[in-house]
């Protein structure tokens, strides 16, 4: 593995090549794609949390000029197959449109296609749907009870997943431990909420028998799922992956959108465009995130060392399954966080309710779990009156202990947590920060310091799938690159996925440039359609630096090796005596050399000069399997989850005006170690953006429901996204512990910041209100909740003071 200092392009400040098209308004988002003859769709949504759909009367809508088609769930279900379910629950059947029963307010019930979107919206007002409202269920714990009314009667209960794992001697450790602590924390229902909603254009060509799809997606095996649902061969679906995606961070799966648009296009033999408006997106976009209750017990000793943990996590995943229950599985791969906790019992429960379904959200369930673990570490310190930092230091895995096997079967690749913490504290001046907190406290404000240390599992294998669903035996989770050097010597890389802001073109060019020692700016990067693509699993699980970077590295290495082989033949010297430099090949012993263009010319035009048996051209494909997680889980539920583990350490100072309750972030510092950084600006942006997102999840964002099952946070007036006023200046302290599992030592960073920010803010606010004798154990900690709790505590203190006088 190369040492970072020796890199020519990797880790250097380089512009992100994608940026030019975005700053000039020249990007191509899905809403910018309008093939000739495009029609526009709108959906009619259920006003009830649960209702039988008795009848759909579209006659008035269909009589309007310019209205082409109205379909309901029964039409769709007759012609398509249900969408895939991630867990073993085959009777939790889901189609893009509700069939006979609507299971949440906002669920799509019918779709209308017209000449324009405005006309489609007019027409949907004329569609008469007879509903018979049914009882509904919103609470996750209530849904877990055996006598709860199932959201899916055929499934027989509301339980989608109910798995218990025990890794190590948990009961023994609890029996032996001098101290035990139990707590409950709740993670509120929020999501990534990209500024661009979901959208799709599907265009069926009956003469070529091809369904072309342009979509705003970040979805592994997207074309597969469309083909399966539409009962088409996979080579009859062509997904255009050069569509720019306006943010995703996990949620842009878009299967139901694409299946519906594909079906409508096939019915009409016209392109059909479906772009959600914000209301459709918030209620029926099926993109809410985890809503999780944690009950945790820790067994620890007087020194603050945590020996065992029991964790029960119950997630209310909403009305349908999809892959969302699997978000309880990924955290298994770092269930002890950065700590040496020797034994763990984990009980993972996912239940259905009459809420909007969940989708993958940045970190795939990891950030809630990190929040639960970090709350516990703070509680241990509090119980023993120890310093929170010291408790973390004592429990951290030490640098010399890597690779480190955790109880649930995953081996952490590398890390140096003590050094990252020390560097960060050194930079921020811990003593001065404590002094500043204490000074703030003398001014009548509440002030607290929050700390959180956590891991970002990265590299994205799918081992949580077979772990939670034994019928799923997938162990392959590859990523690919094609490299071609043309007859004039120019390099073109082909990548096989959409991007939603991660800078994959820059990543690929930088890595190929590093291997070939050629300026990355001279390397073209293009995207194949799904039909032309090598296997890809898209940018999920913080995997592209590792997986796309790895595939590019290997593909470019094959080009380099071939150039050396050609030169060896021409120069009459063994390859081992040659040196590759800046695109040419030298023979130091003789002083002779061959240039890049000469070698490319031989490969393309001079077969007679090639070594015997060598194929012409300079083109290679590399399909890279994920570096670890090659085996199915063991019967006792041990599994190697992701290959790489990035580390982050957050410190935040918060001040709260007790009259208002609004937390003000006074200082935010994060120590971050994601191994070798490929592009510093990209990694920095991911981390800053992740923290902003975490601030939203901790303080502002929640898909709140009223007692009637109506989503009340339907707009950006109610679902509050952090603005520039809420997000502070963040200082990043950078550290590099290379991964032994990757080509350049790189790890993932796509979820950085988000994975620890909510825990850090909770820690800070609880530090601030501790003198009042109260705690916050539910996210988001809204201003109103903080203000009310402080007022109540102050009242209580004053009353008791009065009583004692």
């Amino acid at each position, binding site marked *: 593995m190369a040492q970072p200092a020796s890199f020519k392009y990797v880790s250097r400040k380089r512009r992100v090549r994608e*940026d030019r098209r975005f700053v000039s308004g*020249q990007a191509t988002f899905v809403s910018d794609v309008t093939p000739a003859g495009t029609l526009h769709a709108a959906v009619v949504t259920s006003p009830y949390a649960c209702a039988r759909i008795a009848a759909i009367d579209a006659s008035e809508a269909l009589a309007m000029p310019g209205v082409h088609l109205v379909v309901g769930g029964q039409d769709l279900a007759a012609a398509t197959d249900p969408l895939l379910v991630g867990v073993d629950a085959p009777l939790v059947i889901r189609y893009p449109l509700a069939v006979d029963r609507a299971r949440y307010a906002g669920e799509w019930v019918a779709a209308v296609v017209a000449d324009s979107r405005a006309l489609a919206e007019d027409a949907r007002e004329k569609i008469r749907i007879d509903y018979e409202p049914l009882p509904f269920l919103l609470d996750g714990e209530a849904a877990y009870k055996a006598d709860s009314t199932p959201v899916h009667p055929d499934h027989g209960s509301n339980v989608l997943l109910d798995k218990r794992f025990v890794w190590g001697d948990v009961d023994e450790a609890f029996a032996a431990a001098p101290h035990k602590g139990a707590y409950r924390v709740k993670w509120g229902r929020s999501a990534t909420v990209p500024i661009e909603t979901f959208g799709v254009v599907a265009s069926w060509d009956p003469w070529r028998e091809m369904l072309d799809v342009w979509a705003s997606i970040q979805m592994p095996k997207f074309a597969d799922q469309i083909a399966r649902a539409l009962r088409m061969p996979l080579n009859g679906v062509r997904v255009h992956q050069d569509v720019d995606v306006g*943010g995703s961070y996990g949620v842009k799966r878009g299967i139901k959108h694409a299946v519906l648009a594909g079906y409508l296009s096939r019915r009409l033999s016209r392109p059909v465009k479906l772009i959600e408006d914000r209301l459709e997106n918030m209620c029926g976009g099926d993109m809410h995130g985890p809503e999780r209750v944690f009950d945790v017990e820790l067994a620890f000793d007087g020194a603050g060392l945590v020996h065992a943990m029991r964790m029960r996590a119950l997630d209310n995943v909403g009305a349908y399954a999809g892959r969302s229950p699997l978000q309880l599985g990924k955290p298994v791969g770092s269930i002890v966080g950065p700590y040496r906790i020797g034994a763990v019992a984990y009980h993972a429960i996912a239940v259905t309710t009459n809420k909007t379904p969940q989708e993958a959200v940045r970190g795939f369930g990891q950030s809630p779990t990190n929040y639960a673990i970090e709350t516990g570490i703070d509680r241990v310190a509090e119980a023993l009156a120890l310093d929170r930092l010291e408790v973390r230091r004592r429990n951290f895995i030490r640098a010399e202990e890597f690779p480190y096997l955790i109880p649930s079967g995953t081996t952490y690749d590398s890390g140096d947590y003590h050094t990252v913490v020390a560097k960060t504290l050194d930079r921020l001046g811990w003593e001065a920060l404590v002094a500043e907190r204490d000074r703030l406290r003398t001014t009548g404000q509440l002030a607290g310091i929050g700390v959180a240390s956590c891991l970002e599992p990265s590299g994205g294998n799918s081992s949580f799938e077979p772990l939670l669903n034994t019928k799923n035996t997938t162990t392959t989770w590859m990523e690919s690159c094609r490299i071609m050097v043309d007859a004039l010597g120019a390099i073109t890389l082909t990548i096989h996925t959409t991007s939603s802001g991660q800078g994959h073109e820059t990543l690929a060019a930088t890595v190929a440039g590093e291997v070939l020692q050629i300026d990355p700016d001279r390397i073209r990067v293009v995207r194949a359609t799904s039909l032309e693509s090598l296997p890809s699993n898209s940018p999920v699980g913080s995997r592209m630096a590792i997986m796309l970077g790895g595939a590019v590295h290997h593909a470019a290495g094959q080009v380099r090796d071939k150039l050396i082989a050609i030169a060896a033949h021409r120069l009459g010297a063994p390859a081992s005596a040659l040196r590759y430099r800046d695109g040419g090949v030298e023979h130091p012993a003789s002083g002779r050399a061959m240039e890049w263009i000469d070698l490319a010319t031989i490969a393309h035009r001079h077969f007679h000069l090639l070594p015997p048996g060598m194929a012409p051209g300079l083109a290679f494909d590399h399909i890279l399997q994920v570096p670890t997680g090659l085996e199915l889980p063991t019967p006792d539920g041990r599994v190697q989850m992701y290959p790489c583990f990035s580390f982050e350490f957050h410190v935040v100072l918060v001040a709260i005006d007790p009259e208002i309750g609004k937390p003000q972030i006074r200082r935010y510092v994060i120590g971050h170690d994601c191994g070798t950084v490929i592009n510093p600006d990209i990694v920095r942006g991911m981390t800053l*953006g992740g923290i902003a*997102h975490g601030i939203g999840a901790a303080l502002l964002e929640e898909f709140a429901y009223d007692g009637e099952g109506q989503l009340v946070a339907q707009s950006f007036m109610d679902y509050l996204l952090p603005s520039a006023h809420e997000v502070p200046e963040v200082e990043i302290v950078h550290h590099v512990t290379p991964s032994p599992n990757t080509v350049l030592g790189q790890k993932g960073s796509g979820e950085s910041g988000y994975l620890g920010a909510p825990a850090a803010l909770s820690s800070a606010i609880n530090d601030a209100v501790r003198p009042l004798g109260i705690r916050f154990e539910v996210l988001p900690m809204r201003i109103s909740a903080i203000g009310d709790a402080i007022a109540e505590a102050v009242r209580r203190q004053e009353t008791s003071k009065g009583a004692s006088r």
Partner: protein
Amino acid sequence: MRVELSVNGRTVAVDVEPRRTLLDCLREDVGLDGTHAGCEHGVCGACTILLDGEPVRSCLMLAVQGDGHAITTIEGLSPGPGELSVLQDAFCETHGLQCGYCTPGMILAGQALLARTLSPSRAEIVEAISGNICRCTGYGQIVEAIALAAQRLRAANRKAGGA
């Protein structure tokens, strides 16, 4: 209704329904799709344009209300094909974006600020973009981009003044 819009210094006549938003009109009738729909209720700022130099939400305006006003969209900032304005270039230099969806509105909000002052404080920059939501960046590199563009424009003015 027939409306004459002045967009990026060019007069465009369009025939629109009275209910058509300026955003939809710019994207679909004028053919400038660099302006984006985000929330369509005036919160996120993705649809920001300049109307007589001031940033406004094109999703909250009707096309017919644009008649007679000077409209600038993101496409109007580039000095020429393939060329970036100082502010656009600064966004590239600091990587003040990721997915790019909010970026046109964000840049136009910054442009309006730089038209008022070339010495904005951090607080002024934050205030200027506080009506534009970015979900990717956490705003840090956006603030840096606007500060960098201001610095470069000040330097260019000094040079021009000295020459």
